[in-house]
């Protein structure tokens, strides 16, 4: 079963479309990285899936139900950007309020994490460091024992050490099983290590999506003679490495032309190349869906 399914999903703010014609399937137990520049529609998508806003057109279903409905809500946790917590409230009080708002609550998750992070329960949220605040917000989200965990830019404002600590906690939660994760980020260097699926958005449109293994296998860097046409089944996506006679291409069939030397591109290269393309002329936009 797909945990999230969107069909022709669109959301408009005034006259501007923040997201358009989005068809996306998120399989169970996936860890999905949602990438794209500012204004690409990442937050809009997460808010639609969380049920915080309604679609302008198309549909989105979460765990087979309507986002935000009472049937779905207990199984979905959402951590907003910069993990906002009431600054004056104490850690203990925030945890108690969160516990009271949820039908399913595993206090041990919160207690264990606070102990590990050496966060004093009597501290006010405003006294926590950025890393501690993010970790605390993650612990609150995980205490719900959610089936779907949505995180909006969880590591963007953290220093490298805090970022690593956060990702360690997140991956350990995934290892415990039972949770599907979708998190947005504009830091693509963490992606390959932490995610198994990728969704790339640009200007409100889907540029690329799929399992990371498939995406990497579906691309190649070709080095070859200047005047030779590209092998069959190849479409150029990368301008940035086309110095000399190198092309980053999307491949639909394996390249077995001895005139071309075939190399494996990194995920970073693939993502950057797709982001740099004009969405209107995007070659693989509708070919690959998760």
């Amino acid at each position: 079963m797909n945990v999230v399914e969107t069909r022709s999903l669109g959301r408009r703010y005034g006259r501007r479309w923040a997201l358009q014609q989005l068809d996306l399937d998120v399989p169970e137990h996936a860890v999905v990285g949602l990438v794209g520049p500012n204004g690409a529609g990442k937050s809009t998508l997460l808010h639609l899936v969380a049920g915080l806003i309604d679609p302008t057109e198309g549909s989105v279903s979460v765990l087979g139900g309507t986002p935000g409905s009472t049937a779905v809500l207990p199984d979905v946790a959402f951590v907003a950007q910069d993990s906002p917590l009431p600054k004056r409230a104490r850690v203990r009080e925030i945890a108690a309020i969160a516990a009271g708002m949820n039908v399913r609550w595993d206090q041990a998750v919160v207690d264990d994490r606070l102990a590990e992070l050496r966060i004093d329960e009597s501290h006010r949220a405003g006294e926590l460091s950025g890393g501690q605040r993010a970790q605390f917000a993650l612990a609150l989200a995980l205490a719900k024992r959610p089936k779907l965990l949505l995180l909006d830019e969880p590591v963007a404002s953290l220093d490298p050490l805090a970022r690593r600590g956060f990702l360690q906690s997140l991956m350990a939660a995934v290892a415990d099983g039972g949770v599907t994760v979708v998190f947005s980020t504009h830091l693509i260097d963490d992606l390959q290590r932490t995610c198994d699926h990728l969704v790339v958005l640009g200007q409100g449109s889907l540029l690329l999506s799929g399992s990371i293994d498939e995406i990497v296998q579906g691309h190649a860097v070709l080095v070859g003679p200047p005047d030779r046409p590209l092998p069959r089944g190849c479409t150029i996506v990368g301008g940035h490495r086309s110095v000399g006679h190198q092309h980053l291409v999307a491949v639909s069939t394996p390249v077995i032309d001895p005139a071309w030397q075939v190399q494996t591109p990194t995920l970073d290269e693939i993502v950057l190349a797709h982001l740099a393309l004009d969405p209107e002329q995007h070659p693989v936009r509708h070919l690959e869906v998760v």
Partner: protein
Amino acid sequence: MLCVRARHVIALRLDSSSGVSTYLQLVHQVRQAVLLGVLREGDQLPTVKEVVAELAINPNTVLKAYRELEHEGLAVGRPGVGTFITRTSTAPSPEVQARLRSDLTRWAGRANDAGLDVETMVGMLRSVVNETSRGAVA
């Protein structure tokens, strides 16, 4: 079953600048540890959660690496217990290997002083090794 005396003897690590995929790096490290005798039959590999909590990587990557090791016959997964090494390298201990290596380093130094090039040295080593193994068989 040998896992009674299971030891945790290896900590996996990653080199993010190597360009080698994460899962292959994990496979290589375990394979090499077995070859060098650091890991022996019955030794337990770190649990998926331990690796994940240390390296901040996707659990599926660790599972994939462990599956590959099982496929190679180097390890076996026992559901609910962990993954265990099934082979002991017949190679000598790391200490013996280090001693042999330093003998060879001294020899290579002398050969270099005598003006031998790399190809001649390797050729000489190969012929000596061949003669020795023939002698051992005979």
